[in-house]
């Protein structure tokens, strides 16, 4: 993985020193809050409901064990002993003190991590497929490109004051695990005539006006990545609206002007910009690629794994849900669920972080990944090591076998922490997970993604949940709208609202009724919730959710 060079280290140290001085000037009164706020946001510091919050980027979701231990250190030394992994491959600390934040940033810097551009109207952390570099179905590892984008976009003078925030996601696989169609720009690494390039998608996004991205370029040669992105951003900077915050994202720019106009303007800007690139970026890319050389996977036997799989039902259940196909023989990708039933989705204690770091170091070529689904991944493990890994995870509350199941819920922090939230989302997730665990139904239900947001900004990706839940404030009371049929993959779709919302104490029973309909109507155990929904449509679910309305019609 990428290791900072002297330039990176010096840049970050200087930036952190600047922020330390800015904090001092705020405290001594030389800076007003209006002056300080944009400075702290550029460094990932928010002020939330109960405290400051520090958002740290985990570029393209990749960490080594040392970095994970640093995240644990921050949690323990300057926070309340835990951190919250988010849907954008960031980690958030909910309780830092203003005076401590410069020290936290310095500690991160020493580990090769930062919080730059995790907020503000800038290009945010470029997210990637959390199985990048490991997945059996991948064309090539997309992370060197993500790192190139990180270096290009960090402190890029033209893109520090965009009309709105700008999010890029990248995948190297046709099976989209990075939700590229719901990002401002989505990139898929593709191959044409034996050459590597990108399919460029633009104008996707969730929030107030959810949209699925459209193809801007079917094939962009690798060498044109940065000049083309620069052209996309330049057009957005010129064409994008600044009169209305809610119409400022690129999805609105693209939809108001049409994809053809946006494409024509981008291609024109690209012709002008391309000449400014003299190949230095490609040399840099080649250097970056050397950091992402895959480990030398030895062909490994699987006898220990096979024996445990045959004899231990708890291990088997975990292996069935939490493992994915690795590209090397005898290996697997292991997802560690940080969503034990009843716990906060995405939260890990400092101790759990250290356990995961130790496992990565001992068994997983020192690599960890954070997924947008708020879980942690050991991307490269020998199958024979899995029984030992599972035993360690079990001892630390990390062996929940629920990846892809109904309790593997994405939930934003909601009104428990977030200043923008209109309702809580964490307790809704906790109660749904607890309920279906009690019913012992979740393995029978199978693949079902619930995604919960506590406001219309949709950090919890509710629009693309198979079941989406949106918490709102209706006349001073929490109220939850449900959508069905959303899809976060390569067949991306925005869910459809079922009808009127539900009160806080009605939302778990409502989800249960939806699941009951699915279980009764699926044509076999193999037909997933989403497949059943697509086959039978909304009506049967509506009938179960709103029996009174049905009676009136009858």
């Amino acid at each position, binding site marked *: 993985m990428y290791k900072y060079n002297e330039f990176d280290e010096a840049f970050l140290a200087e930036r952190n020193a600047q922020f330390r001085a800015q904090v001092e000037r*705020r*405290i001594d*009164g030389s800076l*007003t*809050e209006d002056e300080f706020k944009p400075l702290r946001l550029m460094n990932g510091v928010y*002020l*939330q*409901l*109960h*405290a*400051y919050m520090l958002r740290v980027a985990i570029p393209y979701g990749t960490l080594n064990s040392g970095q994970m231990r640093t995240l644990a250190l921050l949690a323990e030394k300057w926070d*309340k002993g835990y951190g919250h992994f988010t849907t954008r491959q960031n980690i958030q600390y*909910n*309780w*830092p*003190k*203003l*005076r401590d934040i410069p020290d936290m940033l310095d500690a991160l810097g020493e580990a090769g991590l930062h919080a730059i551009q995790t907020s503000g109207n800038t290009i945010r952390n470029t997210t990637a497929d959390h199985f990048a570099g490991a997945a059996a179905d991948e064309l090539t590892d997309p992370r060197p490109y993500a790192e190139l984008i990180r270096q290009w976009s960090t402190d890029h003078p033209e893109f520090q004051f965009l009309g709105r925030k700008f999010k890029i996601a990248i995948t190297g696989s046709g099976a989209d695990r990075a939700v590229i169609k719901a990002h401002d720009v989505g990139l898929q690494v593709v191959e044409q005539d034996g050459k590597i390039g990108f399919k460029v998608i633009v104008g996707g996004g969730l929030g107030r006006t959810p949209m699925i991205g459209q193809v801007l370029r079917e094939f962009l040669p690798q060498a044109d990545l940065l000049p083309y992105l620069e052209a996309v951003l330049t057009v957005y900077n010129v064409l994008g609206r600044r009169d209305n915050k809610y119409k400022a994202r690129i999805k609105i720019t693209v939809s108001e002007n049409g994809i053809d106009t946006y494409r024509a303007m981008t291609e024109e800007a690209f012709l002008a910009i391309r000449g400014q690139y003299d190949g230095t970026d490609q040399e840099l890319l080649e250097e970056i690629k050397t950091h992402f050389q895959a480990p030398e996977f030895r062909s490994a036997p699987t006898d220990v794994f096979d024996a445990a799989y045959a004899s231990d039902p708890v291990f088997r259940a975990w292996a069935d849900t939490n493992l994915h196909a690795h590209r090397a023989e005898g290996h697997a990708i292991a997802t560690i669920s940080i969503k034990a039933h009843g716990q*906060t989705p995405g939260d890990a204690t400092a101790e759990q972080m250290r356990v995961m770091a130790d496992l990565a170091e001992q068994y997983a070529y020192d690599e960890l990944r954070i997924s947008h689904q708020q879980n942690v991944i050991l991307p490269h493990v020998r199958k024979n090591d899995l029984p030992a890994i599972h035993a360690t995870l079990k001892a630390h509350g990390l062996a929940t076998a629920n990846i892809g199941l109904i309790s593997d819920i994405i939930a934003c922090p909601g*009104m*428990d*922490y977030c200043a923008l939230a209109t309702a*809580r989302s*964490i*307790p809704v997730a*906790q109660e749904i997970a607890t309920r279906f665990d009690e019913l012992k139904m979740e393995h029978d239900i199978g693949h079902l993604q619930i995604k919960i947001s506590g406001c219309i900004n949709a950090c919890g990706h509710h629009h693309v949940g198979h079941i989406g839940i949106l918490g709102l*404030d209706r006349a*001073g*009371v*929490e109220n939850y709208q449900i959508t069905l049929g959303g899809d976060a993959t390569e067949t991306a779709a925005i869910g459809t609202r079922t009808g009127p919302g539900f009160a806080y104490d009605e939302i778990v029973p409502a989800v249960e009724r939806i699941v009951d309909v699915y279980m009764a109507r699926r044509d076999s155990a193999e037909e997933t919730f989403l497949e059943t929904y697509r086959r039978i449509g909304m009506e049967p679910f509506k009938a179960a959710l709103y029996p009174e309305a049905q009676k009136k019609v009858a």
Partner: protein
Amino acid sequence: MARAFTPKVITANDLLEGDVIYFTAEGSWTRNMAEAELITDEAEAQLRLLEAEKQNIKIVGAYLADAKAGPNGPEPTHFREEFRRTGPSNYFHGKQEAEANV
């Protein structure tokens, strides 16, 4: 027709700690909402908010929040302010934790 004015407290976050604070009748800040000044007059509320904002060197984001009189002092009327005065519901952190440690 303008809506009737509802009683308010002035609340903000502490600059250094980041936690929730309330403006008192004496012009100081308290971490206990029950000790806040309950303002019942609209014109007075704006003046008091200006007074509170003079202390912007040690507070952030002062605003008027709806409140009502309770047996022990002002109480929130909206769930958002209830969370701010209590803490999150998933952990015993924030003000609820601080109070338990008194």
